[in-house]
């Protein structure tokens, strides 16, 4: 079952419809409700390798629905310390729980000051209302 539309307050957002949950120099990344809804049911997640470097505003992986493929953009720079293997095995978890079980990677931040450039939930919802 697809999740209800929501944008948690405690997350920071990127305009390419990605979110980051930042804690202790690390961040968990995923795609927003809006992104998974636009794509439809996900059937494939192509993750980065653990240990790979990700760069803010650049693609670190791909998600695919039946009809379309989309790059996943990193909101922050860092090193991949964990890939969500459960989503590799069952990509529909992103549709069911985009901010919980549907997370994509955990990274160790290399430039925590980049956090300041991310959108608050209010700013992200403002951006969505203008889409």
């Amino acid at each position, binding site marked *: 079952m*697809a999740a209800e539309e929501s944008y948690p307050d405690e997350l920071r957002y990127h305009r390419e419809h990605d979110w980051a949950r930042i804690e202790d120099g690390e961040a968990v990344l995923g795609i927003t409700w809006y992104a998974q809804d636009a794509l439809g049911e996900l059937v494939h997640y*192509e993750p980065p390798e653990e240990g790979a470097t990700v760069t803010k505003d650049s693609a670190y992986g791909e998600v695919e629905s*039946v*009809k379309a*493929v989309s790059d996943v953009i990193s909101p922050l720079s860092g090193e991949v310390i964990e890939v969500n293997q459960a989503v590799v095995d069952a990509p529909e978890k992103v549709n069911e729980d985009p901010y919980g079980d549907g997370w994509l990677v955990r990274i160790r931040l290399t430039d925590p000051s980049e956090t300041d450039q991310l959108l608050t939930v209010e700013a992200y919802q403002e951006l969505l209302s203008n889409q």
Partner: protein
Amino acid sequence: MQTLRRTPLYERHRALNARMVPFAGWEMPVQYEGVIAEHRAVRADTGVFDVSHMGELEVEGPRAHELLQGLLANDLDKIEPGRAQYTLLTNEQGGIIDDLIAYRLEAGHYLLIVNAANREAAFRWLKDHELPGSDVRDVSDAFALLAVQGPQSIERLGLDDAPAFTFAEQMLDGIEVMVNRTGYTGERGVELLVPSEEAEELWDRVLERGAVPCGLGARDTLRLEVCYPLHGNDIGPDTDAISAGLGWACALDKDFTGVEELRRVKAAGPERKLVPFVMEDSGIPRQGMAIAGGGEVTSGSHSPMLDRGIGMGYVEAEQAAADTELTIDVRGRDRRARVVTKPIYKRQED
């Protein structure tokens, strides 16, 4: 910019919150609840598709049969009134202008149901070759077409079984309908042709009978699982029927446009062949991806029934045998696939 056309069921699709997309100049529903659920509904029970964007051409007159025998690849002498036939409209090079179904209404009266994207091209080609005593008319705007498909579809519609590729005028919930025993999903089912003004009424009755509304997304994954070619992807004016595995729809013993070239390809053996394949590695093949050895993917998607990537593509003849391993360039990554026999998805009861 050209305005997108809408079928008579546009408001119904909006009311169901369908996701509408441009397709072949039409604004069409790609999905309602979701492609995978719709796909499974057709494999398990019954789905209904609005395919009113497809074109209907009538060819009538004492020389209608003669005209079509010279332009279409399959042999219309094999079908009598009340029967239909899958066939190809071919060009001088043996390429495929369109693939279509010809319905023989009367000895000298045919209905051709053609692809939406080729309606103009097919009509123009027929009109340009018209003979005195054969009248070609584009009647597409007068009709809507609903495909009702799935193992329970015939029972749900209250119809009797009938052989594939037959048709009849019948009453369905008080609406006069042309019931065609044809489809594009590999399941039992019918395609219902009605005057445009009856389309909403028929759609409502079919939904009341339990059919799940399905969009073009599921239509594409369903046809790919059973290896039905899609014109514009797998076949086109630059591909020939023999290489595409459609030799069975070409009567090479009669004369029709491009037959000499098709006979030559058949005799020599095609250099490239259209083959179905299933991914062995993860990843989803897509149209245009390279296959190592000079091939190319022409259709690719995720198969809801196999839960993996599947596709069709042209490969060199020596790579075309079943079980041959292929390597597909999935956005810079080499991923393995294996050539399989048609269809990719085989029904449980088969």
